[in-house]
Structure formats: C-alpha cells, structure tokens
C-alpha cells in the first residue's frame, strides 16, 4: 500500500501566545524511517505530545494515519488500534512503580479485558526485555534503574507495542522515538537501529528524533528539520549532505552576524591566561560524568556544551551540590570544598549561584510573585529596623524587572503567569543581582526572545567583568559563541574538546559536538 503512515497538515500549538508549533506539515511514508531534527525548543517534543493526545493542538490541523483521516487529539483507543507507540523525551515512566507495570501500562490500564493475567504480563515483559538483552528484573522499581536502563525500558515498551499490532503477517503501526539515543552506549544504539530496521521491514514506520546527525544519516530514509516551530526543510537523507542539514538546523538567524559583532564589541577582552585562578575543580566525577579537572580564572566565562545527554550540564549540578558527586574537590582560593558532601545551602554560603535549566520546576516558585522570587537569595540586605522593608524591596525588584526588560514589569504577578522567556529573565536577574563568586548557568536564555537575549548577555558579561567566574552550560551554540571565552565540548559524560580564542565560532562548536559523539 502506498498510503503514507502519517500525514500532518498545518499543525499549530501555542502556549499562552507562544507558538511552539506554527503550521507544521509532516509526512512519514509507509515502511519509512523518518528523522525529525531541530535545535532545542524548536517544537519536536511538542509535536510528539500532540500526536500522543497529551496536548490538544490549535484548531485547523489535519491528520491522516494510513490514509484514514482522524481528529486530534486522538483517544487512546484510536492510537492503539492504529499501532501508535511512543518513547517520550521524558520517557513517561513512573519511578515508584515497577518495570513490569511501566512496560505494560498500555495493556494493564487499557479497558477491554476484564482482568489482568499477571503471569502473561510478566512473561510478555520478560520476553521483550530478553529480546533486547536487558538483564532487568521486571519487579524492580524504575527508580532503581540507571538513566540508561530507564531509556531502554521506555524503548522496549514502545517496540513491544508495535510488535503486538499485526495485520495478518504485516506489522502495522507508527513508532515515535523522541531523542531515545542520548543516554545509550554505541552498541545499544546499534541494537536499537537493528530493531528499527526490523519493524520497518515487517511493515511499520518510525519517526525518529535526534540531535545526532550521524545517527540520522545512518538510519533514516527521509528527514524533516524544524526551526522555531516551522518546517525548515524536508529531504531524502541520502541526497542531503551533512553541511546542508546543519545549515537547516542552525538556520540563518538574523542575530548571528550582528550578535557576533556587537558581542565582540561588548565582550570584555578575552581573559588573559595570566589572570589568577579563582576556582579549581579537581577530579570531579558523578554517576554520568567521567573525571574532570578544570581551572577557572577570575572574570572568565566558560561554556559547557554537547548534544543532549552528553552530561555537560551535570558539571554544574555537582559543583553546586544539587546532585551529589561521587568524588571531587572544588578549591576556592584557600577554601577547599568536598563535592560529594556539598549541599546547596553551603554552596550558596561559599558564594556559588546556580540557575537550573528546568525553570518552573526547580529554579522558581511559580505560585509566588516575581518579587518573592527575584529577591529570595539574599533577603538580609533588606532586613533593617527589625523588619523586611517591602517598599525598598519592591523598588529594587522593579529596578531589576525594568533593567532586564521583564514584560509586564509588574512584580506582584505570579511567576507562573509570566511568559517562559520573561520568567527566565526574572530568575537570571535574581542571581546576577547578588553578585556571586561563581555563577553556574544552565541554558540561561532558553525561551528568551532575541532582543532580551542580548541584554542578558551583557548583564552576564558585566558580572564577569566584576570578577565573577561564570560557567555556562548550554546547547545554544550561538549563545556560547557570543558569551564565552572558551567552551568545553562533552560527549557521553567526558570532556572531549576545548574550543577557545579565535577558533571559537558557532560552526566550529557544531562540528566539535558532532565530532565528539562520533569519536
């Protein structure tokens, strides 16, 4: 049959005005492995979540599955009948529940059958695990698995679902994988690919999301690139060259050039190698991080990057004690901080500051006002005459909001009701304001619009110029280029390369990132 497996027309999805998806057309042919690429925040996962019925799309979208026209959001029954199976980016597992329950969730929570035959379920789960060669006890809680194992469980779950949906001898269905590979070792990736080829050969189709160009080139027949919620291009993978794809992903963003020029203008001259070392990281290692040594000079802005799952952001978590390191020391001048035993409270007292990537979740309390959030780190400043001086606090918060162009500049508004980008401005302003000795930034400008980005960059450069050391973990290469003195590139938990000085350019970084994985 020649009907495409999936045909999406004019798919749009906005979050309170933010268009995560903006008129996306996507066609996945029958028996085709289709790649979906795009930089962070380009809308890939949102597209997946719309398909899975988690998000209702904006009106006007058309969907055809195997030639049959359907309304979005699809009900669970509709999806299962048509053999849709997902591996979500966040995997969609419940940690407290067992591997068995998570793997068989579709079966055991689905209506239809009157009761659950656990023997059969356990057999099925065990079989799928065996087929993937996973030595995992189905009765283990998912919380006891390593991230790799968790990813594998989610993958196995999806494959099992597809494999169970046959029409005659033909497999029938669409397997959607949202960035399944980052956590996987090379041979796991190979096993994954073998399985993908197998299900396709038996009649199913696959939508495969990844940042890893080599993977995409290796496995996909066709691919589509998203940029800022729009389709930047769609092509036969074999035809498209690596460089062309990179260009489609990066796009021709207006600020790249200008950002660089102005960036160059504003940026403090590259910190002289002579500048004194303010912090020294020795032998830092963590569950997903290979040993790392690093010397940070006063006023230096150091970037950390890599493809998703390469673990670069964990350096920040361990340095701040947000997630315990397995070993390592942070030498701050005379002060010697033992990282495995470090807790955030002590980190803050030692003059560290950390802006997590997951912004609503961990870095700000959405239910509280901008004012509350922006002044939290150091309230003692405003504690005079035995009381917090709200007028002063409000005034100060207003200044910060204006300085960082928070829209609307109403500091009594709930953080949650600010736009993503504006919320991000608030949270960054919070730390910039207290002038820490070591500032740890994870995706400092995610979701921030272009103009405001420049302002935040300048603010960051300013604190750096004041002597603060900045570690900036980001997958936004343009940002790293504009901001950093040097950038460390990670892959699979190890620092593979350092790019700095003249050679520090977006293109070079992109090359290094993909080189690193390949390595």
């Amino acid at each position: 049959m020649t009907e495409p497996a999936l045909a999406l027309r004019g798919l749009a999805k906005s979050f309170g005005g933010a268009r995560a998806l903006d008129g996306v057309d996507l066609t996945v042919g029958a028996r085709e492995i289709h790649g979906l690429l795009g930089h962070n925040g380009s809308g890939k996962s949102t597209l997946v979540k719309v398909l899975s019925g988690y998000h209702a799309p904006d009106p006007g979208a058309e969907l055809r599955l195997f030639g049959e026209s359907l309304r979005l959001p699809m009900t669970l029954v509709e999806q299962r009948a048509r053999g849709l199976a997902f591996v979500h980016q966040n995997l969609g597992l419940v940690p407290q529940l067992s591997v068995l329950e998570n793997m068989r969730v579709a079966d055991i929570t689905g209506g239809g059958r009157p009761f659950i035959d656990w023997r059969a379920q356990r057999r099925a789960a065990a079989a799928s695990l065996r087929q993937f060669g996973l030595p995992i006890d189905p009765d283990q809680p998912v919380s006891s698995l390593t991230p790799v194992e968790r990813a594998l469980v989610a993958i196995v779950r999806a494959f099992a679902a597809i494999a169970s949906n046959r029409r005659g001898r033909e497999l029938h269905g669409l397997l959607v994988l949202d960035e399944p590979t980052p956590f996987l070792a090379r041979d796991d990736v190979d096993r994954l690919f073998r399985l993908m080829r197998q299900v396709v050969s038996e009649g199913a189709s696959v939508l495969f999301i990844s940042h890893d160009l080599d993977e995409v080139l290796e496995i996909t027949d066709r691919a589509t690139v998203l940029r800022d919620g729009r389709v930047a291009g769609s092509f036969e993978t074999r035809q498209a060259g690596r460089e062309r794809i990179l260009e489609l992903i990066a796009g021709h963003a207006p600020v790249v050039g200008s950002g660089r020029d102005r960036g160059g203008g504003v940026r403090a001259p590259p910190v002289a190698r002579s500048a004194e070392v303010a912090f020294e990281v020795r032998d830092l290692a963590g569950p997903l991080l290979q040993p790392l040594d690093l010397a940070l000079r006063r006023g230096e802005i150091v970037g950390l990057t890599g493809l998703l799952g390469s673990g670069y952001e964990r350096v920040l978590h361990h340095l701040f004690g947000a997630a315990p390191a397995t070993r390592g020391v942070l030498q701050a001048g005379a002060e010697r901080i033992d990282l495995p035993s470090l807790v955030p409270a002590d980190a803050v007292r030692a003059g560290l500051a950390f802006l997590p990537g997951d912004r609503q979740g961990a870095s700000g309390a959405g239910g509280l006002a901008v004012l509350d959030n922006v002044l939290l780190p150091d309230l003692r400043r405003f504690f005079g005459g035995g009381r917090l001086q709200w007028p002063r606090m409000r005034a100060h918060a207003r200044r910060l909001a204006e300085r960082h162009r928070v829209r609307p500049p109403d500091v009594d508004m709930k953080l949650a009701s600010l736009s993503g980008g504006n919320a991000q401005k608030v949270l960054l302003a919070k730390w910039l304001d207290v002038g820490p000795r070591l500032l740890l930034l994870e995706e400092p400008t995610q979701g921030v619009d272009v103009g405001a980005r420049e302002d935040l960059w300048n603010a960051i450069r300013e604190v750096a110029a004041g002597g603060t050391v900045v570690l900036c973990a980001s997958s936004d290469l343009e940002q790293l280029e504009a901001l950093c003195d040097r950038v460390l590139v990670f892959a699979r938990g190890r620092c593979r390369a350092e790019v700095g000085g003249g050679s520090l350019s977006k293109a070079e970084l992109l090359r290094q990132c993909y080189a690193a994985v390949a390595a």
Partner: protein
Amino acid sequence: MSGAPVVRGSSPVAALVERFALVGAWLAVIAGFGIALPGSFLTWQNFAVMFASQAPAALLALALIVPLTCGDYDLSGGATVTLAAVILGVLNVNHQEPIGLALALALAAGVLVGTVNAFFIVYVRIPSLVVTLGTASLVTGFVQWFSDSSTISGLDATFVDWIITKQLFGISYAFYVAVLVALLLWYVFEYTPLGRRMLFVGKGREVARLNGIRVDHVRAGALVASSVLATLAGIVYAGVLGSADPFSGLNFLLPAFAAAFLGATSIKPGRFNAWGTFIAVYFLASGITGLSMFGIPLWVTSAFNGAALIVAVTLSQFARGRVESDLG
C-alpha cells in the same frame, strides 16, 4: 506469589521481611497473649468475636484506601458511617419502612455524599482534605437533625440476625462482609485495568495523562466508591449494635486512617492495599483485646495504637532506606 509486582527497595530478603513484618507482628502479639492467657485469649471464640465486632472498622479502613490510592483523602468517611446507620434507624424503626428500602436509601446517601465530594475536589479543584473536612461537618449536622441526636434501637430483627446472629465457622456474617469487600478491592487493585489506572493516577498524574488515562474520572469514581463503602460500614455497624448510634462516626475515622497507613507498610509495601489494611485493623484489635483481657486500663490502648503505627512505618522506612515515601 505471581500477582502484581511488589516494588521493592533493597535486597529480596529485606523486601520479604518488609512485606510480612506486620503479619509477623500480629502473630507475635497473638503468641504473646496466647501464652499469657491461654484459656481466654487463645480461643476460637475470642477471635470470632473480635473478627465480627471489628468488621465496621475494617470496612471503613478499606473504604479510605480507595481514594488514598488515587491520592485523595476522604475525611467524611466517619460521618458517612453514622449517616448510613441513622438512615436505617429512622426509616426502618421510626417510620416503619421495610428494611430493604432503608438499606437502598442508605447506600444512595453514600452515592450522594461521594458525588458532592467529587464535584468540589475534581471539578472545582479544592484539595480533598478541605472539601471532606467540610462535608464531614455538613453530614454530621444532617445526622443530628435527622436522628434528633438520639440512639434508635429495635432494627429489623431479620436484618440484625443476618449481620450478627447467623454464623459461619462460628463467626458472624458481619465479618464476611468485610472479607468480601477486601477480596473485591484486592481483585480490583491487583487484577483489573481500573486498579492500575487508579495506581498510576495516584503515583504520577502527569504520566497517567501521558498514557491517556482520564484522571478526573478515576478520581471521582474512587471518591464515590469510598463513600458507598463507608455507608456499607455504617450498615454493618448498625447491624452489629442492633441499633443506630448518631455520635460515634468521628471516633472511627482516625483509627481507620491509622490502619490504612499501617497496611500500606506490608504485603505491598509503599502502596495502600486491601489485605495489608485488613491485617492492620485486626493486628491493632488483637493487641487491644489482649491488653483489656489483662485488665490493663484503656489509656494504654490509645498509646498502643499510636505507638504501633509509628513503629511499623518507621521500620518499613528504614527497610527502604528512608526514601521520601509518597503516601499521605
């Protein structure tokens, strides 16, 4: 057993110990008092009596674990027990209605209470604790009005016979009502998709949604079920007493919650489960029975309740390495 998986923390051994610690404790209590009071405590009759008279408590505790599994509290359970008992009394005795009708209306009242709870919790999105706190005192008010705050005795004799006089293996039917409900919940929780849906809703609302589970429907259903089971507890309570007592609802609530949480430390540690709850109720009852046979003053029993709860949960917390539990 090859039932639903038992999620375990550390080693298989520790897990097994954890699962059956409560049963062990129960047996220990029985053994202890049995040795001390062989003639009186360790008799079939003693247990028969205890099983029957604790049946309402067991039913209420079982009622509570339904919404607890979905992550909601039902504080109106105690008041609902009284409501059912009083409806039986007023209709069957004061108004001379046939018992059948009275029973039907009592259960209907349960549906009503549950629906009100569900509306405010699921639709208006008020925390369950707040809503059921409110409905509890609303129901109490209604009960006081409806019963004129006086005990009503003289319930339909055949009804009372069926609950308490008729026996199987020397145990009144009341007990078997509780057993049946425990079996039902065990079956639903362990062997039906609905049960798994409830579990996923309770443990991870987001993932539940991601897997297409209608979270609101499940929660609402659980709240209604809880109230209906509470009325069933009230019916059995009325049967056991042979009269309708308009006051005691609240006194049953906290012990029932204690049993529910205690039960969640065993059989399926970390999850509210029917048999764990059932055992918890009778473990506490055995302890108290033994103590009072010794003629130990009643204040000891209050202390015993509290101590047993804390000790049991603490042990199971250490067994699982003090991870933040997601109960309560």
